[in-house]
């Protein structure tokens, strides 16, 4: 009995220590990526390729999901608002929920599962097939040549994707609310403009998406670089990227929201 308890406690302790160790490695890795970012900025073509990989290839999923999320918001928002007779606030509701929360968060989650997992798999596969070692032996630093461009590609793509998501969502809300159901077009836009503040809402939303972009890209490149160099290790790292990034996005979203809109 006592044995079981001590065994249990030891297991918890070991996991915690392991988690903290990994966090430390990840932090050191992050600093290394930043310190070795010179190449990816000087030879911007490397980063351009990764923007294509992380951003352009995520366009379809982001645009389509944004449209549908906005359409649902338009439908649900209208149903709710019409009961209290304030359906002219539909534009505000759709715009604020997208710009402040749904845009960055949902776009971040989609980005993590579409681009983040792909980045992890790509780097992990390069590690498993010794491509990273080969590069290192050719006196080319794989962090500078492979990891940093992917990191920056992700960081630069994410805010643009989140903005596209929000814009498409507002358009979707407009389609359902105004075109389909027939809420007043004038008040949809004018109330939205009157209530959505550039600094308070839009800038904060953009800041959120930048933070999520850094977090997801960091997790993705770290998991890829740190994975066990086997097929199984790569697949496990890919799963971990999606899980960890999603949790990080939701946790960070709470922290950022309370910092931005709390007081």
């Amino acid at each position, binding site marked *: 009995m006592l044995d079981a308890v001590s065994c249990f406690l030891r297991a918890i302790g070991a996991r915690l220590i392991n988690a903290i160790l990994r966090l430390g490695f990840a932090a050191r890795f992050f600093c290394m990526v930043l310190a070795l970012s010179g190449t990816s900025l000087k030879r911007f073509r490397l980063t*351009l390729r990764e923007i294509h990989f992380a951003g352009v290839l995520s366009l379809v999923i982001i645009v389509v999901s944004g449209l549908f999320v906005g359409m649902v918001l338009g439908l649900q928002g209208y149903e709710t608002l019409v009961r209290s007779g304030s359906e002219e*606030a539909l534009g505000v509701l759709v715009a604020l929920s997208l710009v402040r929360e749904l845009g960055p968060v949902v776009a971040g989650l989609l980005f993590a599962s579409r681009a983040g997992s792909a980045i992890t798999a790509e780097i992990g596969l390069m590690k498993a097939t010794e491509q990273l070692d080969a590069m290192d032996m050719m006196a080319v630093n794989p962090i500078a040549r492979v990891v940093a461009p992917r990191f920056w590609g992700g960081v630069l793509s994410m805010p643009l994707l989140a903005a596209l998501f929000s814009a498409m969502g507002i358009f979707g809300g407009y389609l359902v609310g105004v075109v389909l159901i027939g809420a007043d077009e004038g008040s949809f836009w004018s*109330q939205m403009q*009157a209530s959505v503040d*550039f600094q308070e809402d839009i800038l904060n939303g953009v800041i959120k998406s930048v933070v999520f972009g850094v977090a997801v890209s960091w997790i993705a490149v770290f998991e890829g670089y740190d994975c066990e160099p086997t097929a199984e290790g790569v697949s496990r790292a890919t799963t971990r990227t999606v899980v960890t990034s999603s949790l990080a996005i939701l946790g960070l979203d709470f922290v950022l929201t309370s910092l931005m809109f709390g007081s």
Partner: protein
Amino acid sequence: MKRASIDIWVGIFVVLGVLALLFLSMRVGNLGGTKLQDPYSLQAHFDNIGGLKVRTPVKSAGVVVGRIESIALDPQNYQAVVSLNMDGRYRFPRDTFATINTSGLLGEQYIGLEPGGDEEVLAPGAEIRKTQSAVVLEKLISQFMFNTAEGGSSK
């Protein structure tokens, strides 16, 4: 060949993203809104400004004529001091009446200006003397309930 197509796609992606950002800040947000031409400032004291916020519009006859620049509390008489950034094209008489209105029932609050009949106009930096405070929510609700009760009985 492959390089060029990557370039084009990244270009399209960046342009789309920037357009979305512009759309959000101009069309959705209030950054573009109405551009104020050679602005001047006015002051107004209110007993209570309710939920008024910086950058909300100042309207006269429904037209946006300025925006709220800053809000502070006067430490002497504990009134709210609101400074307005006004469009230079519009000048208002000295006896203009400033009220805090709400757009719609639960909408955003804004400052409404009702011009008086004075010959002289408010100079830049001048103070609007006649002001009316915001309607407090409780009053608003009781007013609303009173109105609907009345409307119901008259039907």
